[in-house]
């Protein structure tokens, strides 16, 4: 287990560095940020001064090393736009995105797993077909579209839910559903497929032969084994969701990190975009790392080597 953890950790760190290098060089290509910092009404000399001030005239590797060491100590530089430390800026926004992500993934899991289990218990039944239909819909429905439709129905027509903002739990219902529905199909399908496979396993027959009830067979014996790949997928989806919360946050005016990312791209706010790409990647890396650990814990074949 220790070796396994260390190996995974090493890999995670290596991936982080590569991503940081990629994201830094990617945005390095974007050309001269001085003009973006200067704002709409800046003169050429203003821009020149800013270029020297921020050190954009230095070689790539020097700038990268500078940035990386800063980043390691939590200093991502100053936002060109807000002129506050990027770390502080992101810190303010991250909680909204995290909350949204946690709500979204919970929604996805809470709907997908029972649905997947039920579908697997009765293949080709009505519930199986409903589950399949929902997942096919979810995969084909653009989430921005879904969000707009929800606003029209629940905010304007029914007046039940506020269309934007993040001040109460009610504000999170629609964004949660939209984001969760994005992740739901894959989890549902994997649960179903995993359950179908596991239900055919010999040890399920053993459990039945012991006289275990169907519920016990399903949840204690089958789900425990089928859930292993689902955990990995949920971690991956969670990473994707945080990165993909851009659309949802912009529709529902949630001032989270995703929305910040989009705006920062539009504003050429390089340090913020760089930091956000790195942080979203880190989320993915941390989640998959954690899911590996959870899986190892769930699957004794890994845990007890």
């Amino acid at each position, binding site marked *: 287990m220790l070796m396994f953890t260390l190996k995974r950790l090493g890999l995670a760190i290596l991936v982080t560095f590569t*991503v940081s290098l990629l994201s830094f060089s990617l945005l390095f290509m974007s050309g001269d940020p001085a003009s973006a910092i200067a704002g709409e009404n800046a003169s050429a000399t203003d821009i020149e001064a800013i270029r020297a001030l921020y050190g954009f005239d230095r070689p790539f590797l020097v700038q990268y090393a500078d940035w990386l060491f800063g980043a390691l100590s939590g200093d991502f530089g100053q936002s060109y736009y807000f002129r506050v430390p990027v770390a502080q800026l992101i810190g303010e926004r991250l909680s909204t995105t995290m909350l949204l992500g946690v709500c979204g993934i919970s929604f996805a899991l809470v709907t997908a797993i029972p649905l997947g289990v039920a579908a697997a218990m009765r293949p080709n039944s009505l519930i199986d077909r409903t589950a399949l239909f929902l997942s096919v819909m979810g995969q084909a429905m*653009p989430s*921005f579209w879904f969000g707009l439709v929800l606003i029209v129905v629940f905010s304007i027509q029914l007046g039940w839910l506020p269309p934007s903002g993040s001040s109460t739990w009610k504000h999170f219902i629609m964004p949660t559903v939209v984001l969760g529905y994005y992740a739901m199909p894959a989890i549902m399908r994997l649960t179903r497929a995993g359950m179908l496979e596991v239900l055919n396993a010999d040890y399920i027959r053993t459990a039945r032969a012991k006289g275990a009830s169907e519920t016990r067979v399903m949840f204690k014996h089958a789900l425990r084994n089928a859930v292993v790949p689902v955990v990995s997928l949920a971690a991956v989806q969670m990473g994707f969701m945080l990165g*993909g919360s851009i659309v949802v946050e912009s529709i529902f005016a949630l001032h989270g990190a995703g929305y910040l990312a*989009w705006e920062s791209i539009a504003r050429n706010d390089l340090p913020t975009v760089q930091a956000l790409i790195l942080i979203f*990647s880190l989320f*993915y890396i941390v989640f998959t790392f954690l899911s590996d650990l959870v899986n190892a814990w769930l699957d004794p074949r890994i845990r007890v080597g």
Partner: protein
Amino acid sequence: MARTIETVAEDLRTPSPAAILRKRIFGHYGLVFGIAVLAIIVALALFAPLLTPHDPYAQDLMARMKPPFWMAGSDPNHLLGTDYLGRDYLARLLYGARISLAIGLFAALISGLIGTAMGVAAGYFGGRVDLVVTFLINVRLAMPVVLVALAVVAILGGSLQVVVCVLGLLLWDRFAVVMRSSVLQVRDLEYVNAARAIGCSTRRIILREIMPNVVNNLIVVATLEMAHAILLEAALSFLGLGVQPPTPSWGLMISEGKQMMLFEPWLIAIPGVALFVLVLAINLLGDGLRDVTAPENRG
């Protein structure tokens, strides 16, 4: 348990493999539906000039946002109405199908080439090659796709080529993962060893012995990634960083119609539904192909 018996029973029937495949395909409603809808959309895209007399780029500022045929005040000349510059919506929809299909196709092609090359190399050679490829897959998965795509498009400027390339360069991960495991499964099979034993070149073994056996999976992934690319392009366009106007892309049509969605909902409903149906059809096709070629992996 039951399965063993069924397989035994199936073996007993022994109809020709082609007949089995045919039966499976036509017995799979999702697949049939997917193929049919996709065929219709492709036909509409190809024969667009025959289906509408309108030029999708011709504007008429005096005839803006004319409603479609089922609404009051529609113009029989414009079946699906006109957009915010008075361009025929049907013509834009039909020509837009070409764009969406092209984006899906070429993005899947690029990512397919990259992902397959990496996956096959990793699966076949194993060892260090595999380590490197697995690492690259991890790196790729860690990058937030939407964010990176947005950033790159923002830097390079949106155009059809840029969007296709960006999506192609970002969506190869699933190809690599699936190809790697598929190749791992067939790498050490008898006929591959046999080919190796008689001194076939690596190139030949990969192309002639391995690829034909993993091509099923490749096609399945390719269809699903095509749908993925189409949806992503729509999302990019929605955020204002997709293909450039006046190109009639469906994603762009939604993003343009979005402005008026509370008043003229059909403006986003028409391309939205078109997009939904197209992605649905491709997904059903992909799922269906997976079911049909590998029924045991159904899920």
